[in-house]
């Protein structure tokens, strides 16, 4: 957009030189005002986001006492550690499984909510969005209490069905299951609300036209609903992928990475290594490994958001 304006300015300047001076003045004044208005934003991003990001790169090349430059020493050290590869694997399992289930549950529930008559929709939507509103640290405490080894309300309920006590947070499989479950519980309402907004934006005429052409439910879904929602689904999924991949609160409170680091994610492991064991360079190094996947997701989101902007 900026380029267009600049080019227009040039065009005007070359053809009508007398008016150009006045126009340039206005432009000049406007850009001064604009700079003044955006300066706090630029400073904030530069000092507290960009600078730390590059500082993190620098920190990652130091030794533990931060006195000596070790180059890629921290990275090669990580590559040799088994825990690191476990964290990579777990982060991927966690993020992918959680996002898939969030997307599925959100999609299904959005259809159910969309099905019911308008007035009641508001009430249901309000109820179903509650998990997203509660601060995750607070709701995870409730889950921790539901999973409690000796007083677990889940195990109490399951015992009536003859299902033995499940070690929710004590066993590798169940601990991973539990952190994913809590994340799905927390994130599914977000998908629900996004999909519901997308569903409402599909024009009724399209369904009517499909019905006249004799399309069944699946065909309507496949040829009308999904193509119309494709962009929102892509943006929501990618966004959720970033947030889930970088998740900290849930794992930290629920398991602290245990048992035996079996639920550790990049964020929680970076916290443990960098802050709790005060090996800041290694912690910075661990968190930097999130960058590639975040960058890829960000690029795709940006593409989709811009596409939407152009459509509108």
């Amino acid at each position, binding site marked *: 957009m900026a380029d267009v304006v600049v080019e227009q300015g040039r065009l005007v300047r070359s053809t009508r030189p007398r008016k150009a001076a006045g126009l340039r003045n206005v432009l000049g004044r406007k850009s001064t005002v604009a700079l003044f208005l955006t300066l706090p934003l630029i400073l904030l991003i530069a000092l507290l986001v960009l600078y730390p990001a590059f500082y993190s790169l620098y920190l990652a090349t130091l030794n533990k006492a931060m006195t000596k430059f070790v180059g890629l020493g921290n990275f090669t050290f990580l590559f040799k550690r088994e825990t690191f590869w476990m964290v990579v694997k777990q982060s991927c399992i966690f993020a992918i499984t959680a996002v898939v289930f969030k997307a599925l549950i959100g999609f299904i529930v959005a259809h159910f909510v969309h099905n019911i008559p308008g007035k009641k929709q508001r009430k249901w939507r309000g109820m179903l969005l509650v998990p997203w509103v509660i601060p995750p640290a607070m709701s995870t405490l409730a889950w921790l209490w539901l999973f409690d080894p*000796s007083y677990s309300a889940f195990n109490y309920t399951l015992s009536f069905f003859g299902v033995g006590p499940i070690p929710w947070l004590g066993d590798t499989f169940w601990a991973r299951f539990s952190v994913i479950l809590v994340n799905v519980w927390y994130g599914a309402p977000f998908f629900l609300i996004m999909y519901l907004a997308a569903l409402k934006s599909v024009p009724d005429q399209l369904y009517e036209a499909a019905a006249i052409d004799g399309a069944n439910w699946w065909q309507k879904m496949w040829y009308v609903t999904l193509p119309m929602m494709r962009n929102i689904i892509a943006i929501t999924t990618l966004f959720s992928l970033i947030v889930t991949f970088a998740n900290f609160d849930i794992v930290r409170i629920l398991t602290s990475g245990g048992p035996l680091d079996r639920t550790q994610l990049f964020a929680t492991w970076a916290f443990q290594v960098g802050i709790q064991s005060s090996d800041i360079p290694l912690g910075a190094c661990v968190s930097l490994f999130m960058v590639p996947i975040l960058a890829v997701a960000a690029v795709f989101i940006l593409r989709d958001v811009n596409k939407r902007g152009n459509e509108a």
Partner: protein
Amino acid sequence: MSTLAIDKAGPTRKLGSMSRDRTWALRWSYFFLVLFAIFFLTPPVYMLITSLKSSAEISAATNPWWVFHPTLSNYVELLTSNQFLRFFWNSSIISIVVVIVTMLISIPAAFALARMKFWGSATLATGVFLTYLIPDSLLFIPLFKMLAVIQEFTGITLLNRWYVLVFIYPTLTVPFCTWIMIGYFASIPKELDEAAIIDGASWLQTLLRIFIPVALPGLIAATIFAFTVSWAQFLYPLVFTTSVDQLVLPVGITTTLIKGDVFNWGQIMTGALLGAAPPLVIYAFLMDYYIAGLTAGATKG
């Protein structure tokens, strides 16, 4: 199951059977909605149930889903404990200041980015959006070290002080708020501000007299977002503050109420519920703005 039921509502049936199928589809929808509502509401309801129990009743391991001797002692204890009130106070003051700072930064910036096409404005808008995608877990270590270095150089205590969070939180709130405000400002018809400029209004007057009143719903959505994000933030306060009197609510509850192996679950659940209350109250009253803010991020390009 449900798909089958909905499938029957196909277009080729006779009118009578169609409406009957619709009724069945509706019933199935309600059935599954109830199931999902149970799944979604179990933890908050369980919080409430536990918060009404005494420690004796919890350790007696009676039916966990029912309160036999409801008591408000947990609430009384927490609301009279200076420590807990301190957490609440810290959280409140930080969130309110962060909301103000966020608005002061993002409204002028969004105005400039939406209306004044200047050199690099498109790049900056994209940059703002990308900043929004940078998670807190990527920056907490360099920020921690940065604060330590600044503290060493200037002698100003930054680590383990709640006020430092006021400077850090805007990195999480400003990008998104700016982004949705750009969307709202851009949707205001150009004729409106052109008319104001012709009438001799300055840029500042245009912003204050026209843009802010017209984009008020967006402003409310952005405010709610900024507040809930700062209220719920857990990682930064966990890293930057340690003394009990400097903690915010989420960190305070998880670190002080959980003492070693002794879990006072009645109080923890009460604390968690009280901590969840402000966002829930805001949500209950301003649900439409809340949802508008939530969906605006991805739908406004």
